[in-house]
């Protein structure tokens, strides 16, 4: 590898990918969104596909993903990212198309679009950030909120009798023949970050095969919505989220 030296004589071992803009992230300290943005854009840079990539941003905390990701992007209505991505991909079947969505966007208001897009086997990448809460609107219950979990609309904890069960939508997606690669990852440790990056890379490498949807869930945190410090949030996530949303591949190409 070529060694790059900075002006003060130190060796440059890491830099922001050119596929990220210079706009500072607006995310709260410790939030997983920024990490996943960076990983996705690193993969786009490393694969040299910036010119062929079109992204779809959701409505949620990552609504401004297009301010950071230096690729052509469309901002979809709440929950409709998969349908918008379908429209783009059908027009450009040979380009790389991804949607980036939160749990409220993808698994509540957009469930229909999510399931049908997967079931049609649209050749797109869906990046799904599951933080078990509506971060953007101030911490309300999400479809993925755990039983007993306190949110601003489940002040006594999510009760199954009233609000039903956490929705494991990634497990549902994995059942569909239109799904090609389905995996659940995290970004709370360096090791987890490496694995998520590898998953994103595989998902984009698979796209030209036109074998179906690639779906990467990232179990993430929301320190602000969860009312925890980033360190507490990650510990809480490991202890409570991972048993319900275990990390690993749910479906790999045969």
């Amino acid at each position, binding site marked *: 590898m070529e060694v790059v030296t900075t002006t003060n004589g130190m060796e440059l071992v890491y830099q922001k990918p050119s596929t990220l803009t210079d706009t500072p992230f607006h995310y709260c300290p410790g939030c997983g969104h920024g990490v996943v943005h960076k990983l996705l854009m690193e993969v786009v840079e490393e694969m040299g596909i910036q010119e062929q990539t079109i992204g779809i941003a959701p409505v949620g905390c990552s609504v401004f993903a297009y301010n950071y990701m230096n690729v*052509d992007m469309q901002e979809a*209505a709440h929950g409709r990212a998969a*349908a918008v991505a379908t429209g783009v991909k059908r027009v450009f079947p040979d380009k790389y198309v991804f949607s980036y969505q939160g749990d409220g966007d993808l698994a509540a208001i957009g469930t229909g679009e999510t399931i049908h897009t997967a079931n049609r086997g649209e050749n797109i990448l869906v990046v799904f950030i599951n933080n078990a809460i509506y971060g953007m609107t101030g911490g309300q219950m999400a479809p993925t909120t755990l039983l007993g979990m306190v949110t601003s609309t489940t002040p006594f904890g999510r009760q199954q009798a009233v609000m039903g069960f956490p929705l494991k939508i990634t497990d549902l997606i994995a059942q569909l023949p239109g799904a090609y690669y389905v995996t659940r990852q995290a970004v709370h440790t360096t090791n987890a970050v490496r694995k998520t990056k590898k998953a994103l890379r595989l998902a984009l490498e698979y796209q030209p095969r036109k074998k179906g949807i690639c779906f990467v869930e990232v179990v993430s945190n929301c320190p602000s919505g969860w009312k925890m410090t980033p360190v507490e949030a990650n510990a809480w996530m490991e202890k409570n989220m991972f048993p319900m949303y275990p990390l690993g591949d749910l479906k790999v190409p045969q």
Partner: protein
Amino acid sequence: MNQKKEPPRLMKGNEALAEAALRAGLQAYFGYPITPQSEILEYLTEHGAKRGAVVLQAESELAAINMVYGAAGAGARAMTSSSSPGISLMQEGLSYMTSAQLPCLVVNVSRGGPGLGTIQPAQSDYFQATKGGGHGDYHLIVLAPSSVQEMADFVFDAFRLSEKYRNPAMILADGALGQMMEKVSLPAEGSLPPGDKPWATVGKPASRERNIITSLFIEPERMEEVNLHLQKKYHEIQQEVRYEEIETNDAEILLVAFGLAARIAQKAVELAREKGIKAGLLRPITLYPFPSQIISSLSRKVISFLVVEMNAGQMVEDVRLAVAGGRPVAFKGRMGGMIPSPEEVLEEIESIAESYRIPAV
């Protein structure tokens, strides 16, 4: 209006419209079945792919309009069609598309409502079509055909206008126009070349900044700027106004009607003329922009207005605004899928003539 045409053939309104869309260079169609417009989706699924158009049956109208959003954002000439309940579901997407300034064609082969209503033809979506329909300050460009020929012709006009102004355009038809068969001379293929769309998300080359399609403008100053830009555009769109005048020269009672109702009104005008009553018809072709000016200037010549619609009285409000109290404006409507007969309309004309003692000559 439209270039070269083929010798006439007999076609259903929905099919003529679908065939015209392919000839107008349709690149992407997304739709969901609903009576009385399913023939559009059916025709395009049969003929679209082999003629180079992406055609997809979506899981809902919600998905369909958002697929149109994606395809239009990617620069494709995109279209959807539905009927009233489905068009209601598309309002969110249309609001987003006007704000994101995406062109597309939406066809509403409307039916009687409210609610699930009836599959029979109605014009009760006039407010929804012309006043915005979804949230925010916006308009669609709205064309109202009144024949199978216009079902085909207006596809070209709608695409052209929507791309010129980067705003969704709607063809507001009704179940009768969609289902009936008439002679139609189809416009020639390839007469509407694709325009330049430098704003489209096609993948960012190193030579330019990234393209972003969005309707989110979080700072109020910026959101106001966007709104001012849209309003300026709607002001410019007024120059695209179109209407047809029938026997207006010496008319004393002026009927105003669009779409199917205009055909009935035209027949009623003929019947009235046979009885010596000087009736005429003004038919708005564009419902947005609305032909307020011509109505206003005709109001100085005529004695009274009669607006005929297949609803409870929607366009009549715009006519009254244009007339501005200068003349009385009467209304004759049928609702729920019922179509007024020319004789019913004639009765109204006669009673107006009577009340103003317009002498029969």
